[in-house]
């Protein structure tokens, strides 16, 4: 945490109006269309959203790993305050500079632990590679670091495991290896793109627990992408909700869960059963989930106004006219809905 714990926290990364487009045969896919958010030092920012809403593309844009072509960063800036102290715009960096940041100051772990490790190299090699790249160590020392990292992420018998190949490990194990690799150079920011989605609940619990512990130890910030609201609730300090390539809501995690100001967020929260709370009691009438009607929008053909308008039960004709602005509803809680004030009022009435 920062030295002015009471003051506004120090911003590590600020994404302003980021636009990442893909030029496909069928037209331009505006995967990320003016996304703005920031991450403070030491905090965990959860990003949730529909599949295809641009979560991964945002994170890859930050790493500048968008395949170009067909992708391009069409606008906006990504200000990163790395070890140099001064915020630098990642979008404008040279490839060489960028390589120094990747894996070193910002590192990333991915959704599929099964496919994210190179099958033909030992896990030790793969961790050591990052260490050698960024820490000026020879192979032997780097392998020692790798072993330490494996131990650090709780892999038993790391001395042995360091020489094993990915296929010799289970999914949870591999995700730990990924984390070890990502953390091997003490990054300031860890981007985790759905790191537990492919894992079993019990393993997910292990990994989440591990990440929390490591964050405490290292003090890095985490950009945590997921579509599991439970995971967000557990991991995040603040939350960004994305829909159709835009941020539709952003705010403190408790705020978001207690007082969502965007109908999509509301719908999302109501559409999932809560463990324990929603269990069916025989004899009682069954509860109903509040489903969000309709389908995920086609990224090629987003509605002109609010992207959620076609599925929104609160939609009014104005919603379709223009993209609503992202407005501050108070206390850094932002929402992109022209009717947020009404929701706020309704909320107050209910609680009143």
């Amino acid at each position, binding site marked *: 945490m920062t030295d002015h714990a009471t003051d506004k926290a120090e911003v590590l990364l600020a994404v302003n109006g980021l636009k990442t487009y893909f030029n496909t045969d069928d037209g331009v896919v505006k995967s990320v269309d003016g996304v703005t958010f920031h991450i403070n030092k030491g905090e965990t920012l959860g990003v949730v959203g529909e599949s295809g809403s641009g979560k991964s593309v945002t994170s*890859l844009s930050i*790493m500048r*790993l968008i*395949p170009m*072509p067909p992708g391009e960063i069409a606008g906006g800036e990504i200000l990163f305050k790395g070890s140099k102290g001064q915020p630098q715009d990642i979008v404008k960096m040279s*490839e060489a500079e*960028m*390589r*120094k*940041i*990747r*894996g*070193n100051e910002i*590192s*990333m772990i*991915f959704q*599929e632990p099964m*496919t*994210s*490790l*190179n*099958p*033909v190299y*030992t896990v030790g090699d*793969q961790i050591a*590679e*990052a260490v050698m*790249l*960024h820490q000026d160590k020879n192979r032997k020392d780097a392998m020692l670091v790798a072993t330490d990292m494996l131990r650090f992420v709780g892999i038993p018998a790391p001395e042995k495991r360091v020489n094993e*190949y990915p*296929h010799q490990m289970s999914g949870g194990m591999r995700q730990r290896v*990924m984390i070890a*690799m*990502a953390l091997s150079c003490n990054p300031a920011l860890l981007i985790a793109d759905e790191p537990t989605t492919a894992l079993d609940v019990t393993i997910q619990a292990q990994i989440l627990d591990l990440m929390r512990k490591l964050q405490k130890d290292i003090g890095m910030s985490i950009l945590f992408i997921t579509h599991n609201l439970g995971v967000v609730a557990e991991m995040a300090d603040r939350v960004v909700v994305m829909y159709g390539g835009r941020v539709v809501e952003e705010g403190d995690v408790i705020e978001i869960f207690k007082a969502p100001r965007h109908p999509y967020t509301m719908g999302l929260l109501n559409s999932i059963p809560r463990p324990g709370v929603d269990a069916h009691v025989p004899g009682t009438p069954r509860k109903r989930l509040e489903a969000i009607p309709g389908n995920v929008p086609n990224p090629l053909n987003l509605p002109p106004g609010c992207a959620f308008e076609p599925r929104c039960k609160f939609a009014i004709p104005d919603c379709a006219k223009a993209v609503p602005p992202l407005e501050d509803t108070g206390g850094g809680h932002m929402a992109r809905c022209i009717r947020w004030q009404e929701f706020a009022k309704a909320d107050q009435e209910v609680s009143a």
Partner: protein
Amino acid sequence: MFPFLIRRFFQSLPTLLLASVLIFFVISLAPGDFLTPARLNPGISEQQLANLSATFGLDRPVYVQYFYWMWNLLHGDFGLSFQYTQPVLPVIWPRIVNSVYLVLLNLVFFYAIAIPIGVYGAVRQNSFGDKSINVVLYFLLGFPSFFLFLIVIYLILQVRNATGWDIPLGGMTSGNYDQLSVLGKFWDVLRHLLIPAAVLAITDAAGLTRVIRGLMLEVMRSDYIRTARAKGVSERTAIWKHTFRNAILPIVAGIGGLLPAAISGAGFVEVVYAYPGITPMLLTAITASDLYLIAGFTVISTVLLVIGNAISDILLAVVDPRIKVG
């Protein structure tokens, strides 16, 4: 490694055995028997015919003949070539060796051409270079190797007429071969091999290049390459260390299968180039119905192929740790 080799050996035995059965079966389909062509050859005496008939059990049923043949084969006796009135093995062996030279050099070129171009095409996907290479390769794919070779020869003739350079246009050695030093001999053979091997490689490489390009593209899209990039590795490392090694796995697995294709493919060029390899001899053997010689060639090349397959399995085990060895 060793148990793996043993197991590999035992696994290929049935294939070999069955292949020999097939070869024998096919040959015994021919009208008459092995000796029919020999009977027409005044150079082979009745006595010799009778001897052969006995050694190969030709008076017995076909399956017994097979065992005789197999038994002789295992003792290194492939039978008698009726054209040469000599045992098959010493007649065909030098030809096989010659073909193997050509095929090996061809393979070297083959990979030397296909790999860099394929990788380049993948790395610079859809660039002007990639596209023009693709067009050229596409064009080359349509060329039968012998036709390309005829054209190359036509061009070489033009060059030779214009410059007077001594570019070999056939055969395997120059006239003064026997007088050359060891190094000179080596260079002489190499000089003769260069053009056919290269032409062959170019036509074949067209296909492989496209395969490599496709495989590279596929691997480049994979998650672990993204992981590597996220680590901050350089472009070169990402391509050669991480992508390439994975992309060649299917190719390594196919090396064994490549050998027969290469041997077969070399055949056409051997014919055009009047190269003393297997195929020209086989072709004369067909017209002469020199069946033992044909069968001998086929068996040996099958053995070579099975060995090639084993080698590619071993190579695959070396580059891909997921394949268990041992």
